Every structure is written in structure tokens, then in C-alpha cells.
């Protein structure tokens, strides 16, 4: 085995053949395309026209094998192996280990089989690495963002000098507050090489300091934000909700499913596609559950609820309940109604003899299912007494759940129940106390939420423009839910019975259910369903994202970077705005400039040009309004004004607040800005209207570090070429093994740098000698070697006694399956050992006297049960803090947690209304602080304490400013993650494009014309534009370039037309459409269609299928935004996105309560494109 050095030496010798490879690519591109390829000043290719990735790989020569993985954020991390011949990767293999590192045989029939076999993404990785469109040199935009003709090749030295000079200028005027690293996950491996969570901008240092990154060393400029784009609604609910948090488990162990779960309900689940390393465990766990439950009535079912029957559904489900999207909480309400009518006589309010719901449990443990009076709660023994002024120490006053405000009251609509004393057994301690405190309190009353600021009446409801409110007094019967969701009434009743009487239920919600306009509320409703039916705190009942195998990992190497040093820097306090709030932070800072230069906000129909200006933002801002320049003390703490209680902000010379917003944005390995945030058109318009960076403190500057000129780099001021896995040394953590070191096995293209080297160069450009504080003055491999040496002398390590060369040859330590271990009955993860913090199960509680709330306040417990405003310390590093800083005077008035499960949460509402309060002192004079927005929803509160169904029509009514798509051509569209991209990574990969992109028209059977294809599945034409994709216009980087609009698909002309010669190759993303719908619209399989709403328009190929519900369109996530100016499209839009990026259709209006990315929500029209 050769040393790493000799391998890299060999790689260096490979450059000649690589260049000849590029040359052949260029020739192919020029021959096949009118656009051709681009050259830099020295004639070298910077970014070529496509060309077929016909990679020249020697067929002979000794093959070497390297373990590793890919870097994209698909939700998993499978183990792959590269077969390398003379420094070029010939092919990729996957994990094929037969034995664990401990020496045991791995049983392929086990649900915990640890082998991770790569899916199509990693299997086709060679075509990504050697793609001719890879970025090779730093580029600087000189004309206008997005204009390819304006890109000039510059040196790394020039790029880094200009970027760090800009950094210093911004810092001089705005301090740390004007600098921002946007959330990104395109390269997501380790703290050493990850793009956004690596050495440039990672949240945690290798030495476990918060924000141990290059930006911190550059003037404490580290970035703080809340959450991520994948789980914003989920994380918010975990944080802002009072009561126990069963959704806290992301994953459910396969062993628990196999041994304890009785039924599985998948709420739109597609985890087999998004969690590939866990996919086999999921399939097998479901099989094992069914096997165990065989013969038991009503058990062993896997039910899928949703509009698009995902691959997960096709593989695992026994039943598909075809539901419209966004209607989950209506279905749940209908189910609970059915449970209630099997628990009470709803006419008389009297309990039935064999009730489906446990009334005693609901009274004692579930706050707000029924209306209830205010009371004083003894925190240690759970006893209840009437409120008598301020609470004594050790007790708390719990607010009433006012008449008609409980979840039950809303579900029953206009019905009135019986009093507690009439409907409870004498042994029900809580009910007895309620009856004592206020004998007149009935369990439910007519819904009393407000319409136009007054409690709802029949007339008031009828007068509202909002369907949500028109339904306040409507009983939420299965029939009602069926009309909304499309799920038959009988099926809703069966589902209700399943949850109430079907044993232990596992709900798999996947990610999509929460990434919608009402995603927080939908999860809240699902959680309420589990709480009400006691499907929590049991070994087989839970709410989880996916099922995972239980494995034992071998002990590997423990990395550290000796010499990492942040002394002299600070952990500065900053407001933690939502990770999705950056666009508003730019609007806050540059409103005036945007308006002056023609930014119209036209893609945000509910905003309007009058509202654009400095210091103004769109909608509830997700914390952007807190992004001023702040006064800090010497420790980096923000100074509080003792007179007002607000934080002190800096002011401009004219006394107005210094709206720092975002002035310099680092985008390392991400495509959020243009592509993956909702509303690509608005982001583009904003970037086009902002003046280019001129180096001063006040022009905006976007720096992208990436592998491809994907849409966000395309619209950046500076584009820096990045290496990726296999081209840079890195520690990766395969899902089912210990972390391993991947050496360089193939050279990075052109001048692209590893992230480690980029961080080092950036720091050196900022201040000579600074980089050793982050690297210890050594290359990454030095630190890996040290860690390895430690491991190799440790008898417990899997590497004991091995040499470095042996390690490089096989660093992989396969894990061992564990078929016996099950997670405890309490699905919450106690943070203290079980001996100190006993695990309490639902069953043990149910058998007790039910006097004490079993979720007691206990420090360090995972359960979130904070009081409103209770967490008032600014956290600089934890993403859990989301504007949780309040005035003390507000906190004093805040509601208290009931220390029980809550399906009614006034804490949730209070936190929403007060969030960021202390940061908003500059708005106090207008009476406008915190987050509440009283101008919407007819000025009624928009966040309510119960998980009611908010009608999707209302979201679109607001987001599209009252103009819904025409009746008769109105479709609901969501965007699931399929397997042929990872978010927007791999959009360029030809072996994946041919699985997801289609040429318009239908394919005939060319091999056997006598037997033409008869099935729609066979007639779709796979993409053929590999030589035309991810290319740039001719002469793009030369003086006076071609003037062509930037385009990824050069087979489609700038006006959207396709020449005759390209007709059989030009491809578009497929969009799934129900066959019956299509028949009514005159759309046939393979037809080219435009899909549009007020926000944008996309062009796709229709795939007709019965895998989606009527009235629904499925456009899968991650295609690259690629617009054409197409006259007369009839969509009302000047530009149509022929790339088919779903986010072109997603409104800017954030999701309710969390102000996150509700970006799987769109209502659209569709029509066939006749001429193109």
C-alpha cells in the first residue's frame, strides 16, 4: 500500500490526461450545441457547454479501492467505495461488508442489518464529479447579478482580498451585525470540510466552543439563526409549545416497531426515499410488525394518508386513504368527533357505557381538551384549589380554558355539554375539583373564537371571508372532514377507531406534512390525536419521522484539532432570527435602494410597493426586524436600556436605527437564496435590483463557494470554486458506522479549494497568521494522523495495532446489528441516567391515582414544558432560542404551563405574540413590538391555542391577495423530495436527470413498431439533453459576451422555443397529474404544460398517473430555476421557469406561528403548451 503522499503525487501526474478529457468535452459541447463553451482570458475552459460525460477511464491498470461517502444532504449518509484506476474513479461501489468490525456475521435478513447500500444518487456520483460544468476558477460579477456576460475570471488572491476588504468595511459601520452566513447544506459532511457547517461558519467549534469558525475570528462575525429548512415547523413546535412533546423522537427503533407497534399510519410519508440508509430497516420493521400481528383483528395494518402515493406507500402500505394536501388537521378533527360520539351521547352530553375515550385521563392529564375553570396547582403533589390571588411559592395559577375555547368545543361546533359533576365518576379527582371551583362549567360549549373581534355568531361566521371562521360553529363531523379532505366518511371513522382502539399506533409524519403553510398546526393536531388516544409514552406508540435500525458501532478515532484557538474573540449575543428570515433582513436594510431601482415586490402580491422601504419588511418577519446594529459591552453581551427594558440599538447620524440587516452574505455550498427558499422570482428581482458590490460598507455583496454555477452562484457577486468529497481529505460519518477518513482520490477541478483550505486562505487574507487559530497551522491530514495514532495504540479501538497505510486501505468499521435492544417505554430521552430520573410510562401512570400530573417539572428533562417567556437568556449558539427575549413586565403577566399535556396552549400564543420583544424597542412608540400582526385575518388573532383546521383556501386567499386561480382550473400542488436529487444537489447529474426529466410527447416502440407501447408508464420519453444541460452561453466570460440570458438548458432557446433539431432531446421536469383530471383538461401523457399562480410559472412535462389525488399536482423538489422570457404564455407572467423549480410557485407568506418556510403549499392552474 502506498502512502497518501504517493497517491496524491500520482494524482498530480494525472493533470495532462484530465486536460485532454476536458478538451474532448469542449469539442463535444461545441459540436452539439449552438451555445458552445466558454473560455477565460488565457483560453482555458472555465465552465463548458455540457457534452456527454463520456469519461475517459483506462480499462487496464491496477484498481485501488477507497471507502467514503458523498456530501449532499439527502437525509442519510450511505457508505460508498470508489474504484480508482490511475487516479481516476472508474466506478462506485457500495458497502458490501459481510462481517462487523467485531467479527460477527451480518445477517441480511435482520431488520437491523447495518450495511448501507447506496441509492441512485451515490451510485451515479462519478457523473457529478467529472461533470464538464464543474466550476474551476474564481469569478467576479461585473455587470449585473445573474448576467453571465458580466462574470470575469479573477485570481483567488484578488477574490479573497476584495471579499475580506468588504468584510472589514461592513464591520466598521455595522459591527458584527451586517455579516451573515446563510443556511446551506449542499456539502454537509464534517466540521472540517462541510461548506456551511464547516470551518467557515459552523455553529460548534471542534473544541466545543460555540461558533468555532473563521467568521468568529474575523471580528466576531459568526452568524446566529433559528432552525433549518428541513424541520422548521417541527423544531418550533418543540420549542414554543407547552406540554410534553411526544414528537421529540425523530426516529423510531425498528425493534420497537417489530415488537410493540400494532398499526402504522403514514401521513404522507416518503422516508424510504429521504432516509436511504434506514430504508431497509423500515421495510423489514413493517414486515415484522405485520407478521407479529397476523390473525389479530384490526392490527398489523400500514395505512397511508396523503395526496401522492410515494414509493414508501407503494412498498409498505396496505391501505391508501386518498387525501387532499393540507387537510390533515381536518381529518384529525373528524376522527376525534367520531371518538366523541362514541364516548358521549352528544344530544344529552351523557357518557356512554363503553366509551372510546378515557374521560378521567382527559380531565387529569390533558389540558384544554375540555373547557375548564382557572385553578391553583400545587407543583409538588398535583393538588388543585381555587385561585386566591398571587400563587404561593411552589404553586402556580393555571388559566381557565374559557367556555367554547377548548379543542372539544371547536370540534363539536355549536353544541353544549354537561357539567363536570354530571359526567364524572367520583374517583376522578380533577373533575371533582373543577366542579367545586365552578359548578357551572360545562365540558364543552358553542365555539367562542372571534370573528371580527367578537365571539362568533351564526351571522358573524357567515359574513367572514375566511372559511376557517365560517366553520367555527360547524360540527367537525367525519362528513365535514370528508368534504374537505376527499377521504370517504367511512374511512375517517375507521381511522378514528384505529387510533382509539387499535392498540399502539406509530404515526410517521415524514417532513412534508410540517413544511406547509399550516405545518406547525398540523403537527400540533397529530400530537393532540396521540395525546387524546394515549398513544404516547408507550414502547410501540409514537410520532416519528422515520424508522431506524438499532446497531452497535465500533470505537473508531476521536478527532480534535490541536492548536484551535479562539482566545481574544467573543461569543457575541445576536438576535436568533429564523433561518428563513434573511430575505426580510435584506429588505429591512435596503428597502429604499430596492424601491429606487425598480424593485416592485410584484411576486409578493399581498405586500405592495407602498410598503417597501428602509426599515420595512414583508409580513411577520421571522425576526428580521431585530437585525439592527446593537450596542454591546466588552463581553459581547447586548446592553439593556435600564429605563425602557429594551436592548440598546445603534443609530445612524440622523438618529434613526442602524438597520444592519445583511450587507455581506457568505453562501458556502448552498442554493437557498434563489432556488430553495420559497419565491425564486422575488429573490431574483431583489438581487437584480440591488447595486453590485463596490467594496463599501453599504452595497450588498453575495459570495458563493460551490461546485457548480447553480442558480444562487449564478446571481452572486463572487463565485469561488469548491472541491467536494473524493477531491479533498475529510472525515465523514456514514450513518451506520464510525467516522472514517476519506483521502483525496481524484484531483479537484481547476483551482477549486477544499473548505478547509478556503477557510485558511480567507483568514490569511483577512489577517496574516490568523488561520493557525482554526487549523492549528497544519493541514487536516496532520490532525487525522494524530487522532489515528491515538486510536491505534488504544486496545479498545477497532484500529488497534494498525499502521496509517493499513488505515487508509480500509478505515471502515462495520457496525453490528442489535436485534434485542428496545427503547424505553418513555419515548423521551431523559438527559440523566435512569437511576436518577426514572422513566415513567403511560401505563404506570394510568394505573395510579391520577392526582399528580406525571410530567413534573424536572431540570434537564427533554420534555419541553416551559412557562411563557421563561427562557429569557440569549443563547448564542443553540438554535432553540428564537427571539425568546421579553420585557420583565410582560413575563410577569405571562401564562403558566399547566404541567400536563396540552391540546390547548396559551403559552404557545403568548410566545408568538411577544417573541423578539426586547429587540423591538425602536418600534415601541408605535405600540408595535413582538410578532403579532393585527392587520390580517380580519384583525382576529392568527395564532390560536388549539390545533384547529385552518382552511387552505384562507392561506392562498391571503398569499395571493384575494385572487385565487380560476375556478375550474384550480389545483393544489406540493413538492415531495424524490430520489433523483438531494434538495437541489445533483440536479445536473445526467444519470439522475434521465430518471426525472422527460422530453415532451410520447415514445413509440422503436424496436418493435408492430407492438407500440400501450402503457403510459412506458411512453414517457427520458431526457436527452445531457450535452446541453448545465452549460453557459457562448463567450460568457469574455469582454462583450454573447448577451444570452443565463440558462442551464441550452436546448431551450431564450424565448422558450425548442428548435426542430432539439425537439427529441430538450427535457423538462416531470409533474405528476391525476389521469381523470387531465382528461378533463385535454392534457395527455407527456404533454408539455405550463403551471402557474400569482407567484410564478413553471413549464413541465405531465406524467399522468393514478398515484395522485384528483385536484392535485406533484412537482418534485430541487430542479434548478431557469427562466425564459416567453411572450403570450397566458400565465400572466413575463418569465417562465423551464427548469421547473417548485419554489418558483411558492408564495413568500410564511407558515403560521413559526414564520418558517411553508413552502410545500401552492394553488395553481395548468394548461397544455401548444407551441414551443
Amino acid at each position: 500500500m502506498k502512502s497518501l503522499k504517493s497517491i496524491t503525487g500520482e494524482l498530480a501526474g494525472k493533470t495532462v490526461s484530465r486536460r485532454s478529457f476536458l478538451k474532448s468535452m469542449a469539442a463535444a459541447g461545441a459540436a452539439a450545441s449552438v451555445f458552445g463553451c466558454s473560455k477565460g482570458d488565457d483560453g482555458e475552459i472555465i465552465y463548458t457547454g455540457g457534452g456527454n460525460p463520456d469519461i475517459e477511464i483506462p480499462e487496464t491498470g491496477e484498481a485501488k479501492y477507497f471507502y467514503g461517502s458523498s456530501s449532499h444532504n439527502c437525509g442519510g449518509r450511505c457508505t460508498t467505495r470508489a474504484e480508482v484506476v490511475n487516479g481516476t474513479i472508474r466506478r462506485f461501489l457500495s458497502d458490501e461488508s459481510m462481517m462487523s468490525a467485531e467479527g460477527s456475521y451480518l445477517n441480511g435478513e435482520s431488520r437491523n442489518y447495518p450495511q448501507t447500500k447506496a441509492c441512485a444518487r451515490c451510485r451515479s456520483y462519478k457523473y457529478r464529479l467529472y461533470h464538464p460544468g464543474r466550476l474551476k476558477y474564481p469569478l467576479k460579477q461585473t455587470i449585473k447579478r445573474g448576467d453571465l456576460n458580466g462574470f470575469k475570471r479573477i485570481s483567488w488572491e484578488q477574490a479573497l482580498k476584495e471579499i475580506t476588504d468588504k468584510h472589514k468595511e461592513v464591520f466598521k459601520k455595522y459591527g458584527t451585525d451586517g455579516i451573515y452566513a446563510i443556511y446551506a447544506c449542499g456539502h454537509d459532511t464534517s466540521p472540517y470540510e462541510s461548506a456551511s457547517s464547516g470551518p467557515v461558519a459552523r455553529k460548534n467549534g471542534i473544541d466545543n466552543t460555540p461558533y468555532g469558525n473563521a467568521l468568529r475570528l474575523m471580528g466576531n462575525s459568526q452568524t446566529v439563526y433559528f432552525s433549518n429548512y428541513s424541520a422548521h415547523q417541527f423544531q418550533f413546535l418543540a420549542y414554543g409549545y407547552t406540554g410534553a412533546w411526544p414528537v421529540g423522537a425523530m426516529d423510531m427503533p425498528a425493534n420497537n416497531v417489530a415488537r410493540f407497534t400494532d398499526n402504522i399510519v403514514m401521513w404522507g410519508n416518503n422516508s424510504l426515499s429521504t432516509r436511504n440508509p434506514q430504508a431497509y430497516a423500515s421495510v423489514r420493521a413493517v414486515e415484522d410488525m405485520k407478521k407479529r400481528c397476523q390473525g389479530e383483528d384490526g392490527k398489523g395494518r400500514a395505512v397511508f394518508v396523503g395526496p401522492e402515493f410515494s414509493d414508501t406507500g407503494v412498498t409498505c402500505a396496505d391501505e391508501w386513504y386518498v387525501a387532499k394536501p393540507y387537510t390533515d388537521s381536518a381529518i384529525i378533527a373528524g376522527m376525534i368527533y367520531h371518538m366523541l360520539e362514541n364516548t358521549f351521547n352528544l344530544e344529552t352530553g351523557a357518557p356512554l357505557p363503553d366509551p372510546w375515550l378515557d374521560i378521567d385521563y382527559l380531565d387529569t392529564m390533558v389540558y384544554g381538551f375540555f373547557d375548564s375553570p382557572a385553578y391553583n396547582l400545587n407543583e409538588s403533589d398535583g393538588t388543585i384549589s381555587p385561585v386566591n390571588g398571587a400563587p404561593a411559592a411552589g404553586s402556580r395559577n393555571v388559566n381557565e380554558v374559557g367556555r367554547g375555547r377548548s379543542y372539544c368545543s371547536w370540534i363539536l361546533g355549536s353544541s353544549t355539554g354537561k357539567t363536570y359533576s354530571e359526567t364524572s365518576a367520583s374517583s376522578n379527582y380533577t373533575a371533582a375539583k373543577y366542579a367545586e371551583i365552578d359548578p357551572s362549567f360545562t365540558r364543552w360549549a358553542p365555539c367562542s373564537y372571534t370573528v371580527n373581534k367578537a365571539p362568533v355568531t351564526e351571522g358573524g361566521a357567515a359574513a367572514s371571508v375566511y372559511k376557517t371562521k365560517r366553520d367555527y360553529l360547524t360540527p367537525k363531523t367525519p362528513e365535514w372532514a370528508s368534504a374537505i379532505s376527499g377521504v370517504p366518511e367511512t374511512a375517517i371513522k375507521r381511522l378514528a377507531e384505529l387510533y382509539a382502539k387499535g392498540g399502539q399506533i406509530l404515526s410517521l409524519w415524514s417532513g412534508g406534512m410540517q413544511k406547509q403553510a399550516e405545518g406547525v398546526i398540523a403537527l400540533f393536531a397529530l400530537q393532540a390525536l396521540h395525546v387524546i388516544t394515549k398513544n404516547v409514552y408507550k414502547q410501540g406508540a409514537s410520532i416519528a419521522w422515520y424508522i431506524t435500525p438499532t446497531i452497535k458501532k465500533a470505537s473508531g478515532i476521536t478527532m480534535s484539532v490541536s492548536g484551535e484557538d479562539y482566545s481574544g474573540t467573543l461569543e457575541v449575543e445576536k438576535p436568533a432570527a429564523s433561518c428563513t428570515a434573511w430575505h426580510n433582513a435584506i429588505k429591512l436594510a435596503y428597502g429604499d435602494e430596492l424601491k429606487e431601482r425598480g424593485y416592485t415586490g410584484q411576486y409578493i402580491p399581498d405586500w405592495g410597493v407602498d410598503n417597501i422601504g428602509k426599515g420595512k419588511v414583508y409580513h411577520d418577519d421571522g425576526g428580521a426586524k431585530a437585525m439592527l446594529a446593537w450596542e454591546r459591552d466588552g463581553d459581547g453581551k447586548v446592553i439593556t436600556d435600564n429605563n425602557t427594558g429594551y436592548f440598546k440599538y445603534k443609530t445612524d447620524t440622523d438618529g434613526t436605527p442602524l438597520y444592519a440587516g445583511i450587507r455581506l452574505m457568505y453562501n458556502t455550498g448552498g442554493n437557498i437564496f434563489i432556488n430553495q427558499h420559497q419565491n425564486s422570482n422575488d429573490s431574483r428581482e431583489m438581487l437584480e435590483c440591488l447595486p453590485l458590490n463596490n467594496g463599501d460598507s453599504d452595497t450588498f455583496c453575495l459570495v458563493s463557494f460551490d461546485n457548480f454555477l447553480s442558480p444562487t452562484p449564478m446571481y452572486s457577486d463572487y463565485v469561488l470554486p469548491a472541491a467536494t468529497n473524493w477531491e479533498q481529505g475529510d472525515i465523514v460519518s456514514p450513518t451506520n458506522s464510525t467516522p472514517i477518513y476519506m483521502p483525496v482520490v481524484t484531483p479537484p477541478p481547476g483551482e477549486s479549494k477544499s473548505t478547509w483550505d478556503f477557510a485558511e486562505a480567507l483568514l490569511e487574507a483577512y489577517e496574516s497568521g490568523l488561520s493557525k487559530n482554526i487549523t492549528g497551522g497544519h493541514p487536516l491530514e496532520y490532525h487525522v494522523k494524530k487522532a489515528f495514532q491515538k486510536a491505534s495504540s488504544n486496545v479498545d479501538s477497532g484500529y488497534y495495532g494498525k499502521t496509517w497505510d493499513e488505515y487508509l486501505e480500509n478505515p471502515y468499521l462495520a457496525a453490528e446489528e442489535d436485534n434485542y435492544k428496545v427503547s424505553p417505554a418513555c419515548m423521551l430521552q431523559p438527559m440523566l441516567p435512569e437511576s436518577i430520573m426514572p422513566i415513567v410510562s403511560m401505563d404506570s401512570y394510568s394505573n395510579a391515582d391520577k392526582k399528580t400530573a406525571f410530567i413534573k417539572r424536572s431540570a434537564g428533562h427533554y420534555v419541553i414544558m416551559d412557562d411563557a417567556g421563561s427562557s429569557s437568556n440569549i443563547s448564542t449558539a443553540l438554535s432553540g432560542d428564537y427571539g425568546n427575549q421579553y420585557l420583565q413586565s410582560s413575563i410577569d403577566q405571562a401564562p403558566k404551563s399547566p404541567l400536563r399535556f396540552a391540546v390547548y396552549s396559551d403559552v404557545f400564543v403568548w410566545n408568538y405574540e411577544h417573541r423578539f420583544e426586547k429587540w423591538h424597542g425602536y418600534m415601541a412608540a408605535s405600540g408595535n413590538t413582538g410578532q403579532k400582526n393585527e392587520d390580517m385575518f380580519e384583525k382576529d388573532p392568527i395564532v390560536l391555542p388549539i390545533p384547529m383546521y385552518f382552511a387552505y383556501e384562507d392561506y392562498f386567499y391571503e398569499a395571493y391577495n384575494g385572487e385565487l386561480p380560476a375556478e375550474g382550473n384550480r389545483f393544489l400542488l406540493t413538492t415531495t423530495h424524490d430520489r433523483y436529487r438531494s434538495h437541489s444537489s445533483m440536479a445536473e447529474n445526467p444519470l439522475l436527470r434521465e430518471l426525472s426529466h422527460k422530453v415532451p410527447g410520447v415514445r413509440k416502440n422503436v424496436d418493435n413498431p408492430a407492438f407500440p407501447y400501450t402503457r403510459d408508464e412506458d411512453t414517457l420519453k427520458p431526457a436527452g439533453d445531457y450535452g446541453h444541460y448545465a452549460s453557459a452561453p457562448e463567450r460568457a466570460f469574455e469582454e462583450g459576451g454573447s448577451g444570452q440570458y443565463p440558462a442551464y438548458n441550452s436546448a431551450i432557446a431564450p424565448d422558450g422555443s425548442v428548435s426542430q433539431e432539439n425537439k427529441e432531446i430538450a427535457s423538462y421536469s416531470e409533474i405528476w397529474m391525476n389521469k381523470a383530471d387531465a382528461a378533463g383538461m385535454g392534457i395527455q401523457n407527456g404533454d408539455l404544460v405550463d403551471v402557474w399562480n400569482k407567484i410564478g410559472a413553471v413549464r413541465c412535462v405531465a406524467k399522468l398517473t393514478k398515484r395522485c389525488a384528483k385536484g392535485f399536482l406533484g412537482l418534485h423538489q430541487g430542479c434548478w430555476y431557469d427562466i425564459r422570457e416567453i411572450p403570450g404564455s397566458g400565465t400572466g407572467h413575463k418569465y417562465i421557469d423551464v427548469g421547473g423549480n417548485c419554489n418558483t410557485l411558492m408564495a413568500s407568506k410564511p407558515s403560521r406561528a413559526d414564520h418558517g418556510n411553508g413552502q410545500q403549499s401552492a394553488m395553481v392552474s395548468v394548461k397544455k403548451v401548444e407551441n414551443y
Partner: protein
Amino acid sequence: MRMAFFFDQSRCIGCNACTVACKDWYGVNPGRVRYRTQTTYETDEAPFFASLVMSCNHCEKPACMTACGAGAITKRSDGIVVVDRSKCQELHSCLTACPFGAPGVADDTQEPVKGNEKWDYSHPMQKCNMCVELLDKGEKTVCERSCVGHAIEVGDYDELLRRHPGAVQVSKDLFPYAYKNNNDTTTNPSFLIKPRKSLVIEGSLD
């Protein structure tokens, strides 16, 4: 000995790992030739949706071999039907003969002609050879090695039938969608499928 494919329709997750791994392994560029295809077919009756992953079925009576006038297709004693691309004369009769559409012919884009000195014709037929070189070395096929759902197995036909109760031979009656190229039911394909279980659909799709 009759080498055959077994495919578990209830475990296939439709991920295309096998089809892409196959292309990557054999250097088959993007384009119309694809030794393996994955398609989720839709039927009017339960199970309504079913994944079919199929390549050459190495039939006992290969229609392609009978049709080939150049003698390029042979059947080995272990049942594997192999094509010798250097013998192919681009007569293309195999393309119409195979009921499953397994043989493929590339175009200039997918298979650049330059450097193809190994055979006289530009694009001789190619198809799945069941990874004979690997099998002969005692290794497993690429598709079996890559299958995420453990849904593919290659082995002796009778042995596979024994190992997988419920598996049935691919047939026009049970899997009509497999016969996408013609209805020749006489080839006796070496392809066993464990069918997907039933599905109940609540709600209307029509």
C-alpha cells in the same frame, strides 16, 4: 443448472440503485440503452401499483437467440444468455423478438464511435449478461449487490423457487406489463417474482 433472477416486488423501494449501479459499472452513458429498468406500473385492479425491475430474463428458449442471424447470442450451459458484441451485425432482429425489450442499441451520443475498435459495427446490440464475469469469479451480480431493499437475488431457478415461497415465474397473465415489446409467451423466462401484496384504496382516483 438454470441461472435466474428473483425479484421481491414487496421489498423493492423503487430507488433505481440497481439500474444506475449497472450503468455505472458497465460505463453505459445516459441514453436509451439501459440494461435494467425500474418502472412502477399501475393496474386497474389490486395491487394497483407495482414496481417492476427487469433486465434480460435469460429465457430457456430465448427468442432473441433464435432471431439472431449472426450467431452473436448464445446460451451458456448454466442458462445465461450472452451477447458477443463483436459478432453482432446490426440486423436488429433480436430487438423485435424479445418480449421484454431487453436488447438495446445505442446511438452516437450514448456510445461515441471513436475508439470503438473492438467491433466492426458502430453500435452492436448490448444487454444484460447477468454479470457473467463476476459470477464466474464467484462474485454476485451488480444488481444483487446494490439492491437497497434486498429484493434481488440471482441463482439457480429451482433453488430460488425453494427459497422463496410465493415466488412465481413472470407471465403475461400475472404481470402483463412485463411484456412491453410483444406477447411471445413461449420463451420460458428465468425470472421469478414475489408479487406485491394487495392494496385497498379509500377514495376515488377516477
